[in-house]
């Protein structure tokens, strides 16, 4: 099932819609927002210079910092009287990023989320257990209204309270689970305490997961733990929230809703566009947002995009599941390494999130990696052999999963350098 025929339009139709909407968006931001007007002027361009989709590259980038610099509403392009919803990031690394929606934007959001549900095989007969957090975070409400739009029954469970969540899932007959993959796994672990046959008490058939970078291994584990189809959703509040793209039944890649979001892949170092299929930083321009349209937003996420039509009948381009973050990629002996991947390997190996730091250095002509892992209370033991086993296990998982030969060192808590309260993940001594 496909929610909207726009999802299977021809490439020509997609591109002509995109160009028309890009021109409208450029005119709009230029006319009403001084930040964009100034940026256009610095580059010596006006919206009239956008004559083809290639001209997108002439437009300025927008970064997270721009949103912070204009905290809270400086980049909004409609009067506040028209804004019907505000969401915001937690702001743990600086000022929060605030986003706003008018009534039209809410319709767009519900529309793309309806596509997500339909792509995952969810409809009016389904009960959606929504365990994304409700609140300032876009996850809860984004998944909520999309489910209502396709006519499903939504249980607004929000986060926490594992036992009660499991009871609601059983008693209300949830067929769809929407939450982060790590919470899905946690739910399965707790549910399985009822015995290995616990699945018979649940009617789950589909999970729609997102909001955190996820390794292939974790996806398989979640799908197996619950015995369900795994659909992955991608999104970010700066663009709309969840609903920028979603994986279908035919492919692990995620269809980007191209009639609403114009995606590019660029070299994060030079800003130049990369050929189709190559990995680089995902940059998104909103095509239909009104309260907070964004031009060429640097997501910082690393992925690749292919445009060939999919077996599911959709023609919208497909991106890979996010492989890492542009700001902290390391190249070690020719292999790209993202700290998020290292973090996941450690978490998967030990079942707990441990603080770590990656140190890249040279040994002769070769790169060498050292990974410091803090010994937290969760893994501390009075047994020396056990600690050595943990160290070796992390080292072996890094080699098996990421093909990197790293020297793992156990270190004391709080010994990894912090910056603004967060651990410094990467130290590159080769620079």
């Amino acid at each position, binding site marked *: 099932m496909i929610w909207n025929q726009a999802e299977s339009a021809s490439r020509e139709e997609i591109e002509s819609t995109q160009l028309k909407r890009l021109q409208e968006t450029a005119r709009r931001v230029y006319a009403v927002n001084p930040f964009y007007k100034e940026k256009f002027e610095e580059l010596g361009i006006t919206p009239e210079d956008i004559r083809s989709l290639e001209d997108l590259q002439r437009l300025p980038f927008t970064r997270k910092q721009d949103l912070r610099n204009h905290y809270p509403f400086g980049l909004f392009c409609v009067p506040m009287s028209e804004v019907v919803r505000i969401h915001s990031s937690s702001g743990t690394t600086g000022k929060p990023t605030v986003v706003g929606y008018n009534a039209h934007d809410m319709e767009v959001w519900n529309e793309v989320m309806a596509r997500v549900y339909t792509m995952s095989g969810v409809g009016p007969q389904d009960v959606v257990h929504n365990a994304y957090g409700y609140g300032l975070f876009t996850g809860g409400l984004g998944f909520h209204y999309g489910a209502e739009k396709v006519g499903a029954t939504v249980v607004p469970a929000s986060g926490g309270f594992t036992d009660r969540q499991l009871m609601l899932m059983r008693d209300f007959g949830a067929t769809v689970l929407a939450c982060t993959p790590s919470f899905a796994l946690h739910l399965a672990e707790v549910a399985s305490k009822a015995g290995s046959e616990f699945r018979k008490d649940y009617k789950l058939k589909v999970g729609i997961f997102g909001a955190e970078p996820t390794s292939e291994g974790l996806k398989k584990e979640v799908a197996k733990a619950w015995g369900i189809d795994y659909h992955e959703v991608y999104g970010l509040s700066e663009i709309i929230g969840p609903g920028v793209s979603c994986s279908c039944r035919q492919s692990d890649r995620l269809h980007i809703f191209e009639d609403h979001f114009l995606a590019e892949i660029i070299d994060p170092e030079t800003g130049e566009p990369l050929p189709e299929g190559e990995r680089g930083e995902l940059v998104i321009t909103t095509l239909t947002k009104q309260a907070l349209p964004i031009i060429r937003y640097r997501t910082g996420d690393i992925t690749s995009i292919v445009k060939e039509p999919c077996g599911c009948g959709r023609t919208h381009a497909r991106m890979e599941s996010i492989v890492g973050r542009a700001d902290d990629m390391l190249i070690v002996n020719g292999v790209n390494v993202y700290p998020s991947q290292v973090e996941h390997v450690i978490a998967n190996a030990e079942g707990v999130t441990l603080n770590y730091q990656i140190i890249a250095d040279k040994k002769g002509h070769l790169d060498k990696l050292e990974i410091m892992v803090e010994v*937290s209370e969760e893994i*501390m033991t*009075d047994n020396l052999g056990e*600690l050595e086993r943990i160290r070796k296990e992390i080292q072996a998982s890094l080699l098996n999963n990421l093909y990197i030969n790293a020297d793992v*060192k*156990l*270190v*004391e808590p709080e010994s990894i350098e912090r910056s603004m309260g967060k651990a410094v993940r990467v130290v590159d001594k080769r620079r």
Partner: protein
Amino acid sequence: MSKSIKQLSVFLENKVGRLGDVTGILSKAGIPIRSIELVEAGDFGILRLIVTETERAKELLEAGSFSVKVSPVIAVEIAHEAGCFHRIVSLLAAEGINIQYAYTCHGGPLGIFILKTDRVEMLRAVEVLETDGVKVLDAI
């Protein structure tokens, strides 16, 4: 856990001064150390401690950014004469109880032997020792 005493294990990197940081925290707080054992494996080690105020010592060490684990260990009284270690070790061996690690502590005319078995075997170990007249301590 009946008839056991609490031991603190502290994770230490193999660096000059770290052991002194631990003993400094305890000394400043006026907590005497009854027994101490340091085991190392290359870049890191574990410092095992028996102190008089286990919980307070743990809190203070954690506040000083150390990873600390409290585990039960068995403490038995031994005389200063040949064969007394052997007696305890062979009693446990005869019952198939494995000793993971052990160290000693001096307490006046008699000595104290501190040992760690698998957790599930601790109760049985205490029983075996007491049945044979060995004095198992619940505080030192």
